[in-house]
């Protein structure tokens, strides 16, 4: 299952493979740890860097946009580094690219138990 495509590792595939593994992991970590790049307050349209609490009487705070940006920045940085040594990227098991995303379903079903058990 792993490293079957190492005949001619190129930078584009190394980037895409590393991004596909890193981005979901970064997203889940940022979401679970609540590490958004920014917080958006839809009631007032205000943006805050990093995590910010909802302000009383100004509506909720939104972190999802910030988690996505965290994922994109982190994924691009790590995948960019992988292009420096494309051969190394192909040592990563290809199955990581689908096993971790699939594992996210039971992971989130558990993490969101607050909603199911009320």
């Amino acid at each position: 299952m792993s490293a079957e495509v190492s005949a001619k590792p190129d930078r584009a595939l190394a980037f895409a493979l590393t991004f596909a593994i890193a981005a979901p992991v970064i997203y889940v970590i940022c979401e679970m740890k609540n590490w958004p790049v920014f917080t958006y307050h839809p009631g007032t349209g205000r943006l805050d860097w990093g995590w910010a609490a909802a302000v009383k009487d100004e509506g909720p705070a939104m972190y999802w946009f910030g988690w996505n940006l965290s994922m994109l920045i982190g994924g691009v940085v790590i995948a960019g580094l992988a292009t420096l040594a494309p051969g190394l990227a192909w040592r990563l098991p290809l199955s990581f690219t689908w096993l971790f995303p699939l594992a996210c379903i039971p992971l989130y079903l558990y993490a969101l138990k607050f909603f199911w058990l009320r």
Partner: protein
Amino acid sequence: MELVHLVMAETTFWTILLMIHGLFSMALIGALTHQAASVLRAPKAGGDGFAARFSGVKGEVYASAVTGLWVVTFLFGAWIYVKYRTYIRIPLEQEEFWKTLGAFELKEQLASIGLGLLPLYWLAWRRSNDKSLQPLRKWLTLVLALFGWIALLVGHVVNNVRGFGS
């Protein structure tokens, strides 16, 4: 935004955006389901029936459309998510639709994770002659199809519980 509200009610505007989001998502799920059926099909499977024709498509033809549709659907979803957070979610919390809210939380996470898989999915299908990339094509397509179906069904249920025109 004020200009838009001069020509239509605010709820109409958001409902139109939601419908565009929904139409893109249906096009996406149609393409993904055909492609998923094609990767599950036995290589030498023949036949002339519905199932054979449904799965007998060239998967690589769909890859760019799926990638573009996922991104566009995601962007429209992100746009209407701002309104959902205040106009839909808060009333659902007040009415204690916790399972509906939880399902939407799951949908937003899966849509984001799917976004991270797109570059590899697209590249693996672009190089469809490379047999060593076949497991990647197969599994990434199946994962994206699963995520897409969950997102579509959850979005449909949430809109049934409380749409923008409610």
